[in-house]
Every structure is written in C-alpha cells, then in structure tokens.
C-alpha cells in the first residue's frame, strides 16, 4: 500500500498556504507534520482526507486490494480537533453508531475491547457529555479502533491528554504501524516512533495572484 501526494497546493482565502508538496508513505510508515500555528498542518490533513479540494496536485492511494480510481478518503480515519461524538448519547451508542456506519473489513475491535484499549472500560453506559475533556478525547480515539482503516490522519491527537494517555496513544499508533498501517500526525508531542518522516510546514508560499493578472 502506498499513499502518495504529488505537487499538492492548498490555499486559505487568497493565500497559498503550501505548494508543490510531495511525499510517499508506504506500509508501516508515519509522517509527522510540524510547524507553527497557521502554517497549514490542519489544512494538509484535511486535503488528504478529501475534505478540502487541493488547489493543485493530487493524492492517490494504491496497493494490493485497492481498486484503481478509489478515493483515498475511503481508506482514512480522520481525527480532527472535534471529537465527532454526540453529548446526548451514551459512549456505547456513539461508538456503536460509528462502528456500524463506518463498517469496514476485518481488524476492527469490539466496542468493549476498544474502550479497554483506551483505558476506559466500564463507563460505556455514561452519556458522553458527562465525561471530562481527556476522557472524551480518549473515546474519540477509540473510534479509530472500532472500524479498520489503513491510514490514520491525526490532527493534534493528544491535545487534551495527560502524560499517561499520551503514552497509551503512542502505543496505539505504533501497533497500527506494526500492522502495516500508515499514520499522518500534526502534533508537537513526540510520539516516539521509528521510521518517521518529518515534514516542517512553513506556511505562506505566496499570494495566488496570477488569477487576476
């Protein structure tokens, strides 16, 4: 499996945030995206997730069992700033919904197993809104486990987590990579991974002026 980006460019408003950005990620490889605020880390992840259309270039996902022309976003898990969970529903209902909605092939955990993995078994019956920010984030991570996707796109995944949960999460990413997965993370924390490429975003690569010239 190979996730490759060729000559990506994206803009916010009239500013090109990055341009001509290329990389290849094979099985078990990770890319850590760093840079200051506003340098386009989130934008890059959203472009790869298919949530934003790139200004130029393209993202492809190829490999065994992948039909040519398949959209990369179908092979990605996206963990954004927001947790994609409903406060009114219980944790179990939330996870059960995403498990059944995202479906996907083998390699996925049960909801109970996923909750145990993030260290929060036994409070699945609580409404999501009752949990603390860190607990909410950990269950958002559990969403990545209940349906299998080869590519994980992680936007500040450890924002609300304490040191222990940080380590727990790094372990999860490692295991995902060991199983042949791919991870892209925009983060400041070192995740303690081997085989990591680092991409430093600088932000602002010029005003997109040629349209009006």
């Amino acid at each position, binding site marked *: 499996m190979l996730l490759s980006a060729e000559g990506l460019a994206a803009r916010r408003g009239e500013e090109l945030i990055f341009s001509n950005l290329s990389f290849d990620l094979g099985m078990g490889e990770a890319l850590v995206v760093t840079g200051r605020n506003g340098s386009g880390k989130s934008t890059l992840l959203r472009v790869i997730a298919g949530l934003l259309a790139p200004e130029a270039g393209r993202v492809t996902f190829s490999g065994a069992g992948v039909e040519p022309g398949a959209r990369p976003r179908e092979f990605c898990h996206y963990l954004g700033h927001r947790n994609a969970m409903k406060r009114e529903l219980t944790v179990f209902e939330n996870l059960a919904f995403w498990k059944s909605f995202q479906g996907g092939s083998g390699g996925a955990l049960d909801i109970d197993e996923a909750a145990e993995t993030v*260290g929060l078994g*036994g*409070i699945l019956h609580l409404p999501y809104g009752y*949990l603390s920010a860190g*607990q909410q984030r950990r269950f958002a991570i559990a969403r990545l486990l209940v349906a299998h996707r080869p590519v994980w796109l992680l936007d500040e995944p450890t924002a609300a987590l304490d040191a*222990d*949960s940080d380590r727990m999460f790094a372990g999860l990413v490692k295991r995902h990579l060991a199983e042949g997965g791919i991870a892209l993370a925009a983060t400041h924390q070192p995740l303690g991974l081997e085989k990591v490429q680092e991409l430093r975003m600088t932000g602002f690569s010029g005003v997109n002026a040629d349209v009006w010239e």
Partner: protein
Amino acid sequence: MSDNSLAITKFSDLANPTRFLALVARILPWLSGLTALALVAGLCLGFTAEGDYQQGDTVRIMYIHVPAAWLSMMCYTVMAISAIGTLVWRHPLADVSAKAAAPLGAGFTLIALITGSLWGKPMWGTWWVWDARLTSVFVLFLMYLGLIALNRAMDDPAKAARVSAVLILVGFVNIPIIKFSVDWWNTLHQPASVVRMGGPTIDAEFLWPLLVMAVAFTLLFFALHLAAMRNEILRRRIAAQRRMAARMASGREGR
C-alpha cells in the same frame, strides 16, 4: 440534614429525598388501590344515574369532563406552590414536584379539552368555539407543553427549575381567568354549577357521581404525581452517580 437534629420538623423530614422515597414506597400501593376503588365506584354511579331531561345521556360526559377540568387547574396550582418553594426556599423536592406535575397537567387538560369537544358537538353543534373558557383552557394546555419543553431543553435541572418556576408563577394569572371566564364574559359554556356561592345548583342525582369521580381523579393525580416525583428523584440520583463514575474512572486511570 441528619435525624439526630432536635430542630427537625415534620416538613424537613419529608424534605429529605431518601425519606421521601421511603414514604412514597409506603403510601403508593394504598393510594393506587384507593384510586382504583374510587374510579370503579365513580364509573358505576355514572352509568346507572338517570339522564338529564335537557341534555339526555350526554350528561354522562360531565362525570369525566368536569373532574378533568378541575384537575387541570389544581395541577397548575400544585405547580405554582412548588414554584414558590423553588424560588423562596430553594428546595430540591419542590423542583422535582413542579417538573413531575407538568406532563400530568398536560394529560388532564387534554382530557378536559377532548371530552369537552365531544360534548360540545351534540350540544352546540360544533367541536370547538373560540370563547373565553375554551380558549383559556387551551392556553393552559400550551403552557403545560411549553414548560415541559423548557425543562427538557436545559441541561442543568436546578437552573431549569428556577427558570420554569418564574414562568409558572407568571402563568398563574391564567387560572382565575379560566375559573371566572364563564361569569365575566357571556359565553356558550355553561356557568359553574357545583362550586359557587349559595350552594350547588346541580341536581343531587348528578352531584354524587360527579363528586365520586372528582375524588377518584384527585387520588389518581396524587398517585401519579408521587410516582413521577419518585422517578425524577431517581433520575437525578442516577445523573449524580454517573458524574461520580466518570470522575472515578479518570481517578483510577490517571495515575
């Protein structure tokens, strides 16, 4: 609020939710039995009584319509008293009482509206008229529904209780309007015939079934109200325990 306090009164004894639950558990079976008895008696009396020479057998609708209408106003009065309890003494049980009464009030008001409509069709030839009595009862129904919606829309039950208490008290002006609308305005609805100055004008033949039914409905209301209050207390207890469970879970894992 421990029981070895000397200053304990009957009222504050009741005010402890745990005691209240025990009391409800003791009273509720008796109250339910009494309610069932009174309902059966009321129904028997209602269907054996003679018909009215003017209104025929439709007068039997009165035996449920009038008690339901009384109850719809009494329920609001109970809520208004609870609202005072909420605002003045900040008592949690008063919150619970007001919240539990709202759906019951809506139910009884709906009974009064529908049976009134079913009575009006053969008597007045129309299901509904926009006269003062009917309109004010309909407004009461809307107020009940609005209070239910308000309670559901707010996350924090204590805050919801205070906000709806204010609304309940403001809405209480509607109750005297309902009661006296038949006297103040000249309406199609017949004037009060039981509770009025100078004794009831209603024939004893109709009075007995009506009174028994009124007692039955009142008992029914209190039985349901107590049970609904118990449910609400349990709901809040569950919410509190869940929050505690969430805190405990992170305490356990956070090390």
